[in-house]
């Protein structure tokens, strides 16, 4: 059986490569075209994380297939698989965390969003400032739950 004239495994491989390239490209376009820091961060981080994970899948598939083809003797190919898993896990853990830190930092450094409907972090910070200067906060201690949203 074959899909588009190639074996199903090869088709999945090309699918991963194309998804990875398209999403990385969308991340770049979003970074260039969106109007302010937060939307740019949103587009760039999500798209590049997803795309890089799929490029990692293609390298993993390459390593596994070559490992099987070599009668399970090619250590280099198995190392490709395991180490790419480690690299993808590293991207998956570090990229959203870094984006979160960047968004919070840019909010604190008084770069505000251009178009904004509600800014919960701003409300929370002002509430905390008021509590700090002696005036009791009005809406209680629900700010802790709000800051994660």
């Amino acid at each position, binding site marked *: 059986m074959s899909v588009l004239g190639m074996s*199903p495994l090869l088709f999945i491989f090309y699918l991963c490569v194309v998804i990875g390239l398209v999403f990385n490209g969308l991340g*770049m376009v979003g*970074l260039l075209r969106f109007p302010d820091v937060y939307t740019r961060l949103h587009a760039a981080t999500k798209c590049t994380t997803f795309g890089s994970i799929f*490029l990692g899948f293609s390298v993993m598939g390459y*390593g596994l297939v070559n490992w099987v083809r070599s009668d399970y003797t090619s250590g280099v190919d198995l190392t490709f698989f395991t*180490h790419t898993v480690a*690299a993808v896990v590293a991207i998956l853990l570090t990229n959203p965390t870094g984006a979160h830190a960047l968004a919070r930092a840019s909010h*604190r*450094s008084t770069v*505000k969003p251009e178009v904004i409907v509600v800014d919960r972090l701003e409300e929370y910070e002002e509430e905390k400032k008021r509590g700090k200067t002696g005036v009791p906060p009005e809406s209680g201690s629900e700010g802790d739950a709000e800051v994660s949203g």
Partner: protein
Amino acid sequence: MGQEDIRIGGLAMFEGIEGVFLAVAVFLGFYIIGCAIRLGVGPTAPDRAVALDTINTLIVAAMFILGAAYREVLFVDISIVYALLSFITTLYIARYLEEKKPGMVNVEPVECCFAPGSVSPESGENAANSGGGGGKVEKPAAGAAGEEVVS
């Protein structure tokens, strides 16, 4: 790698797939150049930090793709270390952007966040506000940020 392993039918079609990886790496290079445009023209410092973060992710992807293209496992190992180091760099830049912290070089916290010439009147007003109350709020804010990031 040119063994004649035709027993497993579909897998033989993976012969010479390294060229595809090389083409993907070239594409990623173009994406990195596109992000470098934002790194250059980004009006504020957080814009540049975001562009740098994106470039780092693309470089990690390009590194393991190139490792597969040239069959060098070392590239993949280096990409792991690069991902972790770029994460630490991003966190450090974020802390730098936030406010001045104890242990860091004294900088003007607000003026440094704008490219020269883009400081608008309302942002100056914001700067005055945060500068007025900044002395007392600075430390607890920093602690909260640290906990958020770690957890």
